[in-house]
């Protein structure tokens, strides 16, 4: 009997080992979080994402095809701060996957690890536009927050795959080292433009601008999520003329008509910066996101001296 049981036991053990060693399925709400997960997780995870880097992350359609990804996820990473409130909650509920339900180990809101700006301290109403009552969710655009998220991811991956804890810790340390080096390069490139005043379309850049010393004076949108109005556009033009502002930063998913007319009226330049990994084909990881944006900014600042 024992002789017959042995191959079966071996088979079961092998299946168990294979299962344990299987890649951790990570699904991220955005490509930025998936990119950070790949930095830390290496070949021990399989990372996928829902929103594309060139689409407005506030308005993603909760397509059933996303359920196929979420159904098999061991871990769901989300930006939080209500960025995904219009599409992610029903996907989580409909996925039928207990691991990623709110409150379970496979549901991770990355905002809890990061420095959050623009947290309202007064009563929030919709008269302010589509304001985020818990703070600005575009926090991944500060490398320091990228560093914090990488640490948190190493911890979480280690918790879900204890056998690979050292591997994740080593990858995280390596990521930090490379990030520190890259930051020196980015800081040096942006140093000549510290304190420059800029206009942005939406409030997507507070973390980026604070980190790299840019001063956002006004927005093309009169209020968050509210399309441009002629009167506000005129105000922006007047402000730009008065303060000699020469740059309008626009996200890739906004119409360029108003920014272009502002640029024409003020002799300024419109620069389409990418707020996320995947926004452009060449932005394939977290480092290339900053490389791309800083390169564009430096070129534009030099042009409008």
């Amino acid at each position, binding site marked *: 009997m024992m002789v017959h049981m042995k191959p079966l036991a071996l088979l079961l053990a092998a299946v168990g080992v294979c299962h344990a060693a299987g890649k951790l399925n990570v699904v991220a709400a955005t490509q930025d979080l998936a990119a950070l997960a790949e930095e830390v997780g290496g070949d021990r995870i399989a990372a996928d994402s829902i929103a594309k880097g060139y689409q407005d992350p506030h308005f993603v359609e909760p397509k059933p095809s996303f359920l196929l990804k979420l159904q098999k996820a061991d871990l769901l990473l989300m930006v939080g701060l209500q960025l995904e409130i219009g599409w992610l909650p029903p996907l989580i509920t409909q996925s*039928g*996957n207990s691991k990623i339900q709110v409150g379970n180990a496979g549901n991770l809101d990355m905002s*809890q690890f990061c420095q959050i700006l623009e947290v309202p301290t007064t009563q929030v109403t919709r008269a302010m536009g589509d304001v985020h009552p818990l703070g600005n969710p575009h926090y991944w655009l500060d490398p320091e927050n990228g560093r914090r998220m990488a640490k948190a991811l190493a911890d979480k991956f280690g918790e879900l795959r204890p056998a690979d804890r050292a591997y994740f810790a080593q990858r995280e340390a390596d990521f930090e080292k490379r990030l520190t080096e890259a930051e020196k390069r980015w800081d040096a490139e942006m140093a000549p433009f510290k304190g420059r005043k800029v206009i942005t379309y939406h409030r997507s850049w507070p973390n980026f601008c*604070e980190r790299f010393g840019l001063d956002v004076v006004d927005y093309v949108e009169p209020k968050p999520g509210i399309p441009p109005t002629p009167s506000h556009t005129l105000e922006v033009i007047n402000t730009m003329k008065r303060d000699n502002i020469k740059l309008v930063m626009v996200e890739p998913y906004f119409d360029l008509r108003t920014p272009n007319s502002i640029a024409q009226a003020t002799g300024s330049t419109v620069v389409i910066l990418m707020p996320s990994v995947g926004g452009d084909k060449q932005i394939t990881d977290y480092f290339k996101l900053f490389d791309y944006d800083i390169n564009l900014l430096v070129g534009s600042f030099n042009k409008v001296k």
Partner: protein
Amino acid sequence: MKRFTLVLIAAAVFPLCAAAQDSAEVLSRMKALEDRIQALEQEIQVLKGQPPAVSAAAPAPQPAPAEAPQVAAQSTSVLGGAGGAASKVLNPDVAVIGDFLGAAGNSAGHPTPALEMHESEAAFQAILDPYARADFFLSFGEEGVTLEEGYLTFPALKGGFQLRVGKMRAAFGKVNTLHNHVLPWADRPLVTGNLVGGEDGIDDAGLSLTRIIPAPKGLFLEGTAQVFRGDSGDLFHSYKRDNLSTVGHLRAYRDIGESTNLDLGVSYSRGHSAIAADVIDQLYGMDATVRWKPLRRAIYHSFVGRSEVIWSRLEQASRTATPFGYYVSGEYQFARRWFAGARFDRSDRLGSTAVDASGNLLVNSAILNAALLQDTGGSFVLTYWPSEFSQIRGQLRRTSYGENRTANEFLFQFQFSIGAHGAHPF
């Protein structure tokens, strides 16, 4: 006041050690102390703006300059995610959606009020416990309050099943599942009114089991099986406890590209007809939706084309009626705030000319013998969204009713939503 008190204390303490100093130095030191007190007060304000627990792994917070005029100059930098008002934090998400409807023109014997607060829907939604969530939708109409939906959902049972228990809109086709405020029209298609229970549709107390079905790569298949008490407005009626009604739905979805997708469904429902206890009503439905939304300009342009075809089979001993209906609809978003749409309707209707003493149509099983009437309609719709939370809609509707009467109407609608920002159904 606090600052003044601290300055007073400082002023009282200072003379002891300042006796040997001249008054200018004392004043200078008092000024320095006052500055220090102010700085400390500011730090206290910053700390008050933060949640009590800060992740040990995360570095200390750094105050940041405010970017937005509506946020305070202090404490714009918070480390450790979101805080919240402690006393309200476990309250459900609450939203109220108003639907104001107006109508003008010739209604050809199917009148609706000129102006009405058609519906005020109150939604209460929250996660119940680690295993379930609960959703309630109360509908306040002009004639009273109804529970439009109120259910408990177990989202992740063993085997990938999802169980829903309570009162809910049945998963029959597409329109039946949708609340008024997410429809692309001010009304519902004729086929809904004639064959699927009108505005309320199949909306009943029961249980619903849903599961994603394994399918070839890229294809999403989902099956839903539902059992209800058997009471759905003027469609189904439960004459006895075992007069349950059932609904089955199979959905197939596929992305055709990143901008386009196709959504197909087949539905079935069976119940005891409200016409008479011995009349069984079976409904068969097919629905198809094609959506287009270019991701880079998703907030400016989109298209949704949809059609539903419904067959009804009413049987009573030797008598059978098989009314049929469908609609085809398209809605194109041509600017960030503007949508234009059109719909074509055609639906059979059970006909009867027999009236009671009060002039009301007699509804009984004899109706199955009468010839079917056919209604045909067409609408043009223009919708404007001042913001995500309100919309204004105008609809020109022409309906040729089976009794050879034609209605030409203009419907207008204001919809507005306050409270939690819920996700729209896909």
